[in-house]
């Protein structure tokens, strides 16, 4: 393919049609359309629900819109967010996408540091998959926020809040990773070689800080004991991300590199690393649920989340994956295990977010869970099913990841082997 060289980068010269109208892109657009439909529903709920205050009713009692708003207030569930369960599947997806993407970038940096040649050759592709997932995570979280007020993050920052720290973090993290990719892609190999060790060490440092800030986001919620009492939450996030990151790397390797000579050694390396990561994660799960407040632990291990926990997470991530990975030699089994840990990884993020909210805060007086109306039943368990719109946004985020990857691949052929 004809190329243009710009700032040391070899950029593929391709038509608009070649770039944006191919099978992968069409699939991505389809996913993105689902996401946009979800966004429409979420924004409709958030910004255009029929709502009113006591004052509205007094100021203009003949307004026909009041009738609808009053009906919603009395008989409906007004608005987008349930006060008992503020964080939803969007946060779970944000966690999954962002942690998994960062995990891939983290693992590639570690592999470079430890001189795993087979990863070094393919590192650009993996890094771009990582960045694509980070973008998918950021797309998800952006839809969850009131974006018009985001400038206040800069105007009146609370620099001690973990939520605020994410802003400078990503302002540094994303350009830094893009710079890493640039160095890997660039023809200026001498500079890349000189900076390699510094960049790799910085990359590991930034990745670690990122997980630390993410862990702080949860552990600051003093009353939610699943999040505050889970031991070494930063490390737990890193290890659990490594498992799903290796899963994504396994599937990506199968899709992109299966006809190359590096396929078998790469899958073998992924298999061995995944085995170690799964065992470590298993230790974390056992120690974690022994340490967490027993009300939360019981809710997940023996309560309403137990089926999802054991069949959606433990069975897929630990039992079946270990059975598939324990015996070396068959790359197809590693691919299957990779798919299972990706699903298990997403389920674990769901359980973590929803589990943190599952125990009602209403046992304020130590005498039992409260209710607000005589004919209510006191809820010992909180679960609010996600809106269809939220689920559509989750699907749309896969489209964002796919588009990001395909744009990078179209311009720079990131799936090709690189020597650096």
């Amino acid at each position, binding site marked *: 393919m004809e190329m243009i060289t710009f700032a040391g980068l070899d950029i593929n010269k391709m038509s608009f049609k070649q770039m944006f109208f191919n099978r992968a892109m069409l699939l991505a657009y389809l996913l993105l359309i689902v996401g946009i439909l979800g966004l429409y529903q979420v924004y409709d709920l958030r910004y255009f629900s029929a709502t*009113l*205050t006591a004052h509205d009713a007094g100021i203009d009692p003949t307004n026909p819109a009041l009738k609808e708003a009053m009906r*919603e207030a009395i008989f409906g569930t007004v608005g987008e*967010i349930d006060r008992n369960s503020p964080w939803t599947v969007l946060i779970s997806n944000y966690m999954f996408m962002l942690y998994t993407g960062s995990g891939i970038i983290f693992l590639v940096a570690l592999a470079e540091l430890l001189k795993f040649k087979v990863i070094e050759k393919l590192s650009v592709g993996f890094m771009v998959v990582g960045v694509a997932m980070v973008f998918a995570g950021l797309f998800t979280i952006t839809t969850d*926020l009131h974006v018009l*007020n*985001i400038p206040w993050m800069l105007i009146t*920052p609370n620099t001690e*809040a973990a939520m605020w720290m994410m802003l400078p973090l990503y302002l540094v993290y994303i350009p830094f990773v893009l710079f890493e990719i640039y160095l890997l892609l660039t023809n200026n190999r001498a500079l890349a070689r000189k900076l390699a060790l510094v960049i790799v060490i910085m990359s590991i440092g930034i990745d670690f800080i990122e997980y630390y800030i993410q862990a702080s986001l949860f552990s600051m919620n*003093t009353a939610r004991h699943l999040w505050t009492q889970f031991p070494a939450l930063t490390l737990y996030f890193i290890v659990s991300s490594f498992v799903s990151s290796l899963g994504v790397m396994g599937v990506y390797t199968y899709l992109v590199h299966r006809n190359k000579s590096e396929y078998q050694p790469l899958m073998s390396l992924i298999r061995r690393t995944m085995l170690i990561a799964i065992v470590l994660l298993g230790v974390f799960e056992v120690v974690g649920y022994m340490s967490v407040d027993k009300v939360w632990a019981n809710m997940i291990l023996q309560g309403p989340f137990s089926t999802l926990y054991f069949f959606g997470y433990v069975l897929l991530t630990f039992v079946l994956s270990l059975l598939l990975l324990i015996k070396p030699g068959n790359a197809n089994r590693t691919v299957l295990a990779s798919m299972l840990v990706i699903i298990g990884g997403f389920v674990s993020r769901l359980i973590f977010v929803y589990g943190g909210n599952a125990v009602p805060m209403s046992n304020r007086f130590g005498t039992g869970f409260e209710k607000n109306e005589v004919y209510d039943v006191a809820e010992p368990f909180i679960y609010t099913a996600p809106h269809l719109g939220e689920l559509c946004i989750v699907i749309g985020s896969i489209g964002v990841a796919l588009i990001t990857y395909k744009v990078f691949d179209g311009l720079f052929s990131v799936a090709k082997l690189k020597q650096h």
Partner: protein
Amino acid sequence: MNYAMALDYQSCINCKACEVACKEENGVQLGADKQRIWVGMVEGSNEGKPFVNLYPSQCNHCIDAPCVSVCPTNASHYIAGGIIKVNADQCILCKGCMEACPYDARFIDDTKVAVDKCTFCEHQIAETGTTACQATCPTKVRTFGDLDDPNSDLVKLLEKRRFFFQKEEIGTLPKLFYLVPEDEAYAKQSIGPNTKIHTWDEIKPLYERAAKRRSQEWK
């Protein structure tokens, strides 16, 4: 100034006049769970006899409020007297404060697309010295006042009666003082076994120190 409230909850008759007055006074969004204040009910039985405990609740305006420390834009902030308010224009809807609040005292006001909560009716303290919920309560459950004023009704009441806090072990230094019921049976059924009971003389130094530490932020 250090505003707080005592709740003589044994007198609550669940008329919900406080909830209505709050909505009317503050223009709170209408809807079953869109409440700045509420009366929680816990049902139980004691030696086969069923009972219902009524717990009027609202934001505790904690001295070490987790909702303020987690807010990325300072939309949740302290104002004079240690009252915690939300500036709706600055709220990015991250919902971190809702997760951080141990008392479920926050909700989304869909009319403003922002988090909302009790403000102790701060807009009318200077004029009336009270809150809508206190003013409307037919059984005088609530006593609002200034902990720094030894002559306030609040401090006088706390000097006379023992009290406890919700979820004291979390360490947020809440400022809703629940008065121990004078009726021993009601006290037994409505106070959790692990709840610590305090007197004003004992707790005053802790609250004074904490308020002094925080007072720079109470603008």
